[in-house]
């Protein structure tokens, strides 16, 4: 099968996403941004990104005509959003098309997904696609230095107006709100239910330390030095286990806490982003350094 087709200037600009009931919908007219091999003449159904991620899979493997159309529409919606994200990060038209088509193909090849393993909101879905794009950019583009890598704020998944350029002030405001919800409300509430060896204070202390590692350039060794006056292998392992238990407790309890409190979807998405960006462990590879 031929590689993705690049659109030309004569084909006009990328069809923008649309807003419907607060959700991004793409796909009523996407012929100028989609890959030729998935082109069909049928009228495309309007599809949210959540629906698209649940349905997408290689169209050529569809077993019915209806399934084929569903997969094509899902692919088109995902491609359009990836293209928009890449362009928003400053990619040239050609780079954006290359990158969006490759990532869209990879996302399609991983499907069909189980509904429980898919993003549950449009904000989450955009974040999911941004993460996929970033994963590709890091290994394929940064090494080649063809394109700058967006930092975490640039790929902030809850940008309130996807058609416009990202509004940094609004995104930062949402980020602060999410941090308040997480650290001042959710973490203390989850700590109140902590029992056994890992008690309330231990959980809160560990989360505070993890946040400091992210925010204040602290390291586990500086934390050990401050608390115990020395760094030992045993101390490192103990601190790691404390942090590991805190993260596990947070992951297990946060979704339920968020569901109970009926927060706006953008805030929930932002809280997920903060947890991922600030509290998760991460290995820095040579390719990224």
């Amino acid at each position, binding site marked *: 099968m031929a590689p993705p087709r690049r659109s030309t200037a004569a084909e006009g600009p990328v069809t923008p996403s649309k807003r419907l009931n607060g959700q991004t919908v793409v796909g009523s007219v996407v012929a100028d941004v989609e890959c030729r091999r998935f082109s069909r003449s049928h009228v495309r159904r309007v599809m949210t990104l959540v629906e698209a991620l649940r349905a997408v899979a290689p169209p050529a493997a569809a077993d019915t005509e209806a399934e084929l159309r569903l997969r094509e529409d899902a692919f088109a919606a995902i491609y359009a959003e990836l293209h928009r994200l890449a362009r928003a990060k400053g990619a040239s038209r050609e780079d954006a098309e290359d990158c969006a088509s490759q990532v869209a193909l990879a996302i399609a090849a991983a499907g069909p997904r189980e509904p429980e393993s898919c993003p549950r909101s449009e904000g*989450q879905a955009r974040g999911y696609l941004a993460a996929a794009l970033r994963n590709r950019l890091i290994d394929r583009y940064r090494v080649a230095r063809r394109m700058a890598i967006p930092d975490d704020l640039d790929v902030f998944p809850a940008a309130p107006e996807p058609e416009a350029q990202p509004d940094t002030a609004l995104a930062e405001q949402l980020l602060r709100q999410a941090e308040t919800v997480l650290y001042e409300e959710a973490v203390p509430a989850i700590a109140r239910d902590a029992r056994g060896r890992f008690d309330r204070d231990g959980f809160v202390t560990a989360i505070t330390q993890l946040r400091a590692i992210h925010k204040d350039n602290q390291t586990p060794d500086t934390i050990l030095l401050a608390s115990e006056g020395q760094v030992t292998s045993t101390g490192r392992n103990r601190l790691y286990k404390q942090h590991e238990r805190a993260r596990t407790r947070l992951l297990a309890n946060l979704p339920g806490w968020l569901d109970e409190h009926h927060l706006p979807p953008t805030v929930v998405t932002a809280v997920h982003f903060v947890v*991922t960006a600030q509290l998760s462990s991460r290995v820095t590879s040579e390719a990224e350094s």
Partner: protein
Amino acid sequence: MSVQDFRDRLARIGLDDGALGVAETLSFPAATVDEARAPVREAPSSDDFGAPRGTVRELPLAVRSDVLGAIGLVATLDRAVGCLSFHAPADLPFTLDPPVAGEAFTTDEPADFLIATADAEPLAFGSISGSGLRLQGLHAWPAPPLADWRDAAGDAEWGILAGADEPTVSASRWTATLIAGRIARLLQPLDAPSLVAARTWSRTLSAGQRGLVERFATVAARQLTIRLERLQATIVPDEPGLVDRWRALCHDRDDLEGIRVLLREARTGGAVAAALREADAVGRALHFSWPSNADVHDERLQRVAEGDPGAWWAGTRRRAFVL
């Protein structure tokens, strides 16, 4: 039923010798070994197992079998009464052919039998002799046409997706099926005909054969959960071999994702998806706290990261997207 009889039976339903999996022979413990092992003894007052009140009698021994483990069965050997019995969780039912009362054999009498699913799809062939139990696993579905796909994919792609398993491909139908799952998701270019062919291959299997594939995958997913929980309980950042251990878990999880996709393309696979959700809850927590000094990355895992940023098994260089 001899092995040859069974081969003939497989041939009649269109399966070749490749469906025969690993064979193992488990010797019944002799008395001297029995004493050395010092099996657990029940309280003298109990007579639940038929021993006279006041006597001491050993409890049934658990049979350690890779073949049984792969199909979700356990067996116990009660030497006091010479009884070998088979058990399985309620959601993994099985039958014996020929039927045996209580799914229990007398070890004093030779027997050949087939372990099958509730739908009579064969899982393993067994025989009891005076010296012990012989079991041979079965993967009773047609082989995916890997040779065709390999030619189309080229050596480089084949090396990434099947290289490590190359020596065992011809020996194991299960391994061949796992490779089909990798090709169905990770073969590049991502619109290669072989990727589509692997997905449509799963639809050529009968419902019973897909049920067999799902059973093996479901059992493997539950075993993966146990391995992940074990690692979570014992992990320390400077543990030797941690990188290799995690890489193996990631690859095994990815293999099961391939099976899930193959089954999903055939509109089935709910059981394995449910089992994988349990494994993923543990895997995600482990990945979230992964030691920053243990770098696990390779080309295959990079491909996983690009297609599914929520996949915890996509190496350690990316933050898995928290869903």
